[in-house]
Each structure stands twice: as C-alpha cells, then as structure tokens.
C-alpha cells in the first residue's frame, strides 16, 4: 500500500476513535487508537525515520493518536493502561514537537504523582538502563518534572507555573529541600515576584535545616530596599521563627515579631502566632540583656505576651508548651507545672519533649522520686530512640538522689542499648546518628563525673578517654578533666584544663565557675580574678547557684559579710528550684 492510502486509513481510524469518544465509549475509542499506534510502531520500531518531513500527514495523524490514546484510557478510568500509554509515547523518538512532547511529559508526571497506584516500569528496561531507571512513581515523576524545568530554562517551552508547583510538592514528600532550593534559584528572573521567590527559597533552606541561609534570604526580603512595598507577612513570621531558635539573634527576632504583630492586627488569623513568637523572643532577649531591670521587664513581658497568645489560641498546644518552658527558665515553677500538665493533656502524651519538661519541672521542685516515676512512665510510652534520652535523665535523677549504684547500672544499660542500636541499624537518618553520638558522649562524661565524686580516679580517666574519642575539642570534656584533676588536688593542671575549655568556648559557664572555685582557695590577688569570672558567669546565667555560692565565699573572705549572706541566700533559694538538667 502506498503512504497515501495508509494515511487515509489511519485518518479514518482516528476519526472513528474521536466519534467513539464523543458518544462516551472511551474504552472502544482507546482500542481504536491502540490499533493505529500498533501499526505505526510495527512499521517503524525504532522511531520515525529521518526522511519523513514535518508536513507529513501521516506523522500528524500519528501524533494526534499518541496524544489522544492515554487521555481516552484516563477517561475510561484505567489508570494502569493510561500510564503505559504515556510511557509508550515518550520512550521512543517519535519526533513530537516541543510543546506536545512537554505536554505529554507533564501529564505523565501528574498521573504518576497523584494517580495513587504504584506502577513500575517494565523489567526489560531495568536491564537495559540499570541504575538510571526510576524505581518508583515519585522518582519517575520528579525526573520528568526536572526535564521539563530544564526545557523551560533553555526556553524550549514557555513557563508553566504548574510544573514548579508539582516539583515543589514532589520534593516536599521526599524531604530533599537543598536540591529543591537549587532548582528554585535556577528559575529565570521575572517569573516570580522577588518577595515570593525569596519566601519560597527561605522555606526550602529552613526545611533543609540551613537556618542561617534562610535567615539571610529573609533579611533580603525585609530589608530597606523593599521598604516601598507592603511587608510580606509570612516572610516576617518566618524571620521571627528563625530568630527564636537562635538566642544570639534575639533582638532581631523581637523586631520581626513586633512588626508581624503590628501587621496582623487587622488579620486575626495570625494574631495568636505572632504573639507566641513575640513572647518567645522577649524571653530570649531577657536572657541576653545586661541590665537587671531590663531583664526583669522583658521576662514579665514575655510571660504576659505568651499568656495573651494562649488566650487567643485556645487550642494551640505549642503556645502552652512555650509558656511552660519560659516559666521554668524563670523559675516560676507553679505556673510551669500547671502548663506542662495541660500541654501533655492536650496532646494526649504524644510529645517526648512534653514528658521531658514535666520530669525536669518536678525535679526542680526537688521531688526527685516522683520525677523518676514520670521518666519511667515516659519510657514506657516512647520508642527506642527517645528511650535513650530518658534513660540518661533517669540516671541523672538517681545521681541527684545519692544512689550511685543504681545510676551506674542505668548508665550501663544506656550504653548497651546504644551499642545495640548502632549494630542493628542498617539505615539511619544523619540527625539520628548525631543525636546518638552526642548522647553517648554525654553519658561517658556523666559517668566520669560520677566516678570523680566517688573517688575512683582510674575509672574516671577511662570514661573521659572514651568521651574524648567522640570529640576532642569539646569544652565539656575539658571541664570534666579539670574537675577530675581538682578532685585529685592537682590544682595547677586543673586550671590548665579549664583554661583550654574556656579557650574553646569563652562563654562556657561551668568552666568559669569551677575556675573561680579553685582560684578563691588561693586567696590574695586571685580573689579578684575569681570574682570577675563569677560576675561574668552570672551575667550569662543569673540562676547558677554554684556561682552565687562561690561569690558568697569570696565576699566573706573579703570581709563584706552582708553581701556574703545575700549571696548564700540567693544560692540556697536557687538550688531549691534547680532542675536536674539544664535546658538547651
């Protein structure tokens, strides 16, 4: 048969298929299309040959059939056949035009992402292409969307916002936000609003854990150059949230939160959120402030704002948690306990940090046995990873209750569980691996200080060495070493170890306090040095009872008995409300 007659035949079949579609017989229409495609594919198994020109009617009909075929299967409700049809159209070089090709790729990506059925590629392709074959629908969809994005970048097809949105959705499910950020950056300028582009970028970086980068991007969006536009509320809120996590940026965070609060006065929707952020930022600022009066004022503001947020958002459990946490840090234990129990009730015990906070508050009330009972209950309600942390807390509580044997036993259990976890885990998230590593190091350091108190120097050295293998330049390790040397009365070496600790982290309060403790025993000129160290420590941590006690001793040695009495009183009161573990 000549090409002309074949073309006429195919045109007839295509018309028949279209008419069947019109009257709603989608399956039959699809089968008609299938015949067309089968015919052409058997004639040209390796794709359309070079010779066929662009104006060939046969090619035009064939392309129309290729386009129509999967749509008919979709309308008939056969997802599997539709996806197979799309794949068939895309895997051989049929010389489709750019826009048709892109449209088919996009439709396949949509069908794979949202179809809800996992349909893998035929096995012979796996053998042919090896690792390059997508093994799941979402992989295949992302591959297609990335190809489409590249075409947009090279301007082979025009910009289609749906592609980017599908890509963002796909990447959100896989959690690979750094890669996504890269693709957002590659979008040509002029397509997205500046502010919107920066907002999406900041969200990607924040989701990837790169909070510093996210904050930098947010700063651009809120900078002076954007002043003539209306401020973008979600960006401001994101900025405030990023600063909340970083105590050093507390003032910046407070600025953003106040701005957000201003803007959202007209939009009740966000009012609770902005007040919540403002409260947390005020708390951070209080801890950074140098003057006492400012600190007190900010602490009050913080609690007031958080309470206001809790009143607006009656159902938001996170506000209640923040309120409990802030109250604990301000040693307002009554309110803290109330809110912590309320929080655990609201989430029905499903929050690990809620349990931890409750245990710490109860321990701060010096109710150590009850705190241990809470930790036991929490361990019962959690999975393997969280149990490790609770075990450590339990051991600390046992140490505080002067039960060294039990504590050592608990530490042994903890380290055995860590070892078992490391052996059994084939796959772990890097964040989990880091958390377990940190926990192990802390456990060894705790054991070291326990043995130091008990007087077993050798055991203490062994534990310290184990801890050092995790991280040599850790101020905590050097601090523990300093304490060990001090207990052995090697004061000079202890001072050196503590100096090393302070040189790694100049604001490490425990080292400052320990150093001051050693220096004050020397008397004379060292008293002044000790006093300055302690004042520095108290500036950073006003609730450190050891610092107050040492300050009391110094004042007594210098002769100011009233001051000494005040310091001792402060030390005593603070000790009565200190939780067994410091907050991070």
């Amino acid at each position, binding site marked *: 048969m000549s090409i002309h007659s074949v073309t006429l035949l195919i045109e007839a079949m295509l018309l028949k298929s279209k008419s069947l579609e019109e009257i709603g017989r989608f399956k039959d229409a699809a089968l008609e299309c299938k015949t067309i495609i089968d015919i052409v594919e058997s004639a040209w198994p390796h794709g359309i040959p070079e010779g066929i020109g662009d104006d060939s009617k046969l090619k035009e009909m064939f392309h129309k059939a290729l386009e129509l075929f999967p749509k008919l299967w979709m309308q008939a409700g056969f997802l599997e056949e539709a996806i197979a049809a799309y794949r068939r159209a*895309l895997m051989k070089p049929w010389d489709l035009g750019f826009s048709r090709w892109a449209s088919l790729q996009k439709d396949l990506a949509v069908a794979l992402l949202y179809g809800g059925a996992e349909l893998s590629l035929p096995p012979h392709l796996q053998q042919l292409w090896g690792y390059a074959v997508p093994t799941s629908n979402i992989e295949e969809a992302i591959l297609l969307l990335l190809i489409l994005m590249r075409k947009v970048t090279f301007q082979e097809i025009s910009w289609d916002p749906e592609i980017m*949105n599908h890509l963002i959705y796909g990447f959100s499910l896989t959690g*690979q936000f750094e890669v996504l950020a890269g693709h957002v950056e590659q979008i040509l300028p002029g397509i997205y*609003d500046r502010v*919107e582009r920066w907002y999406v970028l900041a*969200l990607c970086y924040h989701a990837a854990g790169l909070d510093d980068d996210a904050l930098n991007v947010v700063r651009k969006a809120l900078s002076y150059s954007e002043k003539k536009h209306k401020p973008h509320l979600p960006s401001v809120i994101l900025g405030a949230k990023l600063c909340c996590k970083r105590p050093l940026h507390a003032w910046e965070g407070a600025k953003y939160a106040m701005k957000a609060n201003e803007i959202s006065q007209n939009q009740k929707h966000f009012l609770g*959120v902005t007040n919540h952020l403002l409260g947390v930022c005020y708390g951070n600022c209080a801890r950074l402030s140098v003057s006492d009066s400012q600190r007190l004022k900010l602490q009050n503001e913080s609690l007031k704002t958080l309470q206001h947020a809790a009143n607006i958002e009656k*159902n938001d459990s996170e506000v209640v948690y923040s309120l409990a946490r802030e109250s604990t840090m301000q040693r307002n234990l009554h309110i803290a306990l109330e809110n912590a129990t309320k929080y655990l009730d609201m989430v029905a015990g499903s929050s690990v940090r809620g349990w931890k906070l409750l245990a710490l508050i109860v321990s701060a009330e010096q109710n150590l046995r009850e705190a241990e009972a809470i930790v036991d209950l929490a361990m019962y309600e959690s999975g393997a990873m969280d149990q490790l942390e609770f075990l450590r807390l339990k051991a600390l509580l046992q140490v505080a209750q002067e039960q060294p044997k039990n504590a050592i036993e608990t530490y042994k259990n903890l380290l055995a569980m860590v070892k078992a976890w490391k052996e059994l885990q084939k796959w772990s998230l890097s964040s989990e691996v880091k958390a377990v590593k940190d926990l192990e190091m802390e456990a060894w350091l705790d054991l070291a200080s326990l043995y130091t108190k008990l007087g077993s120097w050798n055991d203490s050295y062994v534990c310290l060495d184990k801890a050092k293998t995790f991280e040599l330049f850790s101020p905590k390790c050097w601090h523990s070493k300093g304490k060990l040397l001090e207990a052995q009365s090697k004061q000079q070496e202890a001072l050196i170890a503590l100096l090393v600790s302070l040189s790694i982290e100049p604001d490490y309060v425990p080292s400052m306090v320990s150093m001051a403790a050693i220096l004050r025993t020397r008397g004379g000129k060292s008293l002044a040095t000790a006093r300055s160290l302690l004042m520095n420590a108290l500036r950073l941590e006003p609730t450190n009872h050891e610092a107050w006690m040492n300050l009391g001793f110094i004042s007594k040695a210098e002769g100011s008995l009233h001051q000494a009495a005040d310091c001792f009183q402060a030390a005593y009161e603070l000790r009565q409300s200190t939780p067994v573990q410091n907050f991070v």
Partner: protein
Amino acid sequence: MSADPVAPAESSAFWQSVQRAQAAVQSLSLILGSLPDAVASSENPAAALLNDEAVARQVSIRLRRPGSGAGDDNLCRWLYDTFQSNDPDLQLVVLTFTPTIAGVYLSRAISREPLAGFEAVLLALYAYETVIRGGDPETVILPNLANPSVYHEAKAPPKKGAMELNIAVVSPALEPYGTVRSTKRARIVGVALELYYSKISSMPLSSKLAFCEFCMVWAGQDIGTENDGKEEGGEKTAAVGADENGGKDEGEVKAKAASVDKNGGKEAGEVKAGRIPLPWELFQPIVMIVGHCLLGPANPEELRTTAYSVVEGLHWRATHDMNPQEILATRSLLRLGKMGDDTIAEPQISTSSDDYSEEALKMKARLT
C-alpha cells in the same frame, strides 16, 4: 478484571478465597443485623462488600458511635480478624474503613477512653506494613539529569566509575510495636494511612470523602475567626471527651466540617475542638492522600471540591504551625487546585503589590 477461564489448579485457591469471603460476610451480618441481598448472595462477596454503599454507611455509623472501639467491640474484632485472614480482597475491605477508624481514634485519644479495639486494628495494619517493608525505609533516588535516562539524553557523556546516588528517605524504617505507645501513636496511624494510600485507587468514593471530612476536623481551622473571633464558646480541648463524641454522631458536624461553612460561632467551636497535633509523620500521608483526591485523574467533581477545602484547611494549619515542609507542600497543592482548568490567570494568595511577574508572563505565554 480479566475474564479468562480459571485453570483447574487455581480454582481451589479461588474457591477457598470465596469461602473465606462468605464466612466474613456471614459474621458481619451477625454484628450488623441483616445485610442487603446484593452482598449476602453475591458470587464474589469480597468485591460486593467493597462497593456496597449501604453496608459501608452502617459500619461507619457504628464506628462513630460513642463508646465504640473498646476492647470488646465486636465490629473491631471482625475488622481485625478479617484483616488477619491474609486474603487481599478482604484486606481491601478493611482498608476502606481506615479513615473512619483513624479519625475517631485520634479525636478520642485525648479523652483517655479505652480504645483497645481501634488500637488492635491499627496495630494489625502497622504490623502488616512492617513485615512487607522488612526493616528497610522507603527511599527514593533523586534523578541526576547529567546521566541519561529513558526520557532524555544527557549533554555530557556519563562519567564512569562510582556514581553518587542522592538517596532520600520518604518513610523511615519501622520498629515493631506490640502496643500503642502515646509518643508513637502518630507514627502508627501514619503508617496505616500510608498503607491506605498504596491501595487508594481501589478505594470507594465514600471512603475518600470520609477521609477528607476527618482531615478538616484534624486541621482545626477556626472558621469562626472570619466573623470577628466569636470562638470563645468556652470549649476546652482537654475535655474532648464524652460530650464531643455525642456531637460527632451522624450528620450535622461532619457536613459542616466538610463544606467550608462561614457560620462561625457554635459550629466553629465544635469543629475546632477536634484539632489534634499533626507531626510530619501524620501530615505526609495525609497530604499524599489529599493530593490524590484533589488532582488524581478521573476523580469526580464532588471529591475535588471537598479536597480543595481540605487543602485550604491544611494550609491554614501549616502556616499556623510554621512548619516549612508542610507549608511548601500545601501551598503548591493550593495553587495547583486553583489553577485547575482556568484559562484566565489568577492572582496569587499572598503577594505584594508588585505584579510584573507571573501573571504577565502567563499572559504572554498564552498569546504565543
């Protein structure tokens, strides 16, 4: 369904499964009372059960009753036994009720009622997934465009030697659990929902609509805030106990939850009180299922509109919790749902006044 004649060797397995299905139908009729004839005397009882609206509605009513889900609940026992029968068709039937079970369970978990029945069913689903995955997480290898694939050619020749594969974890490895621990509740229900999603193309419409409705309750959008914060109805979330379940019974609250009703006030109070914590382990399968409902090909219009309002609710919740992963996912779904089949460019949801961008280019694209 293929219509090929069944070989004699297979027919015994086929008949066994039909017998199992008939036994299941019989025991269900003992619990629910009489079943419609279409199910009771069908040749393929499992498929009939799957598609029968009346039975589904009856089971759903029973599951939502106050006091359901306790350790001695017969219906939960039936669901558990049917799932453990390892018959794929019967397992599908149990899966259709997953949204209702998960919904009622999560809403009631706060009230400290005994919910051993629900927990048993959810744990059965979780255990099934754990066995199938065999301790490995669900991973995805992100494609690298530098390497050629079945869909494109690479510009540069592929590099030989060790390939750096960018492996992303979609769902972390599962630990086996014998009981529901409260900190792991979200994970267990999340995995049950992931199992539901994997079979979602076989799920009937009623099941998907029930899921959408529960999502609205979980997100807890204050519909009343539109009307000047009249939400001080004195509702306490800690007491989402007995009273609430009475309100959750058939009809009213659900219908109002499903449609974005701007009545505010009392209705908003009832809807709001069902809000639950939504960590990513729960949010991710929810988003996947809602994405399917919204944008899945060949979905009925009713499902799409319901899914769209659910996405709005979830986006509200995500911006509230300020979780970037959730915001990105729901934001893109929101835009995709709005775009739909529009030919006119729509304004963005949160923009500044500067407009020389997406709309302009869209217009230009349509003209070329």
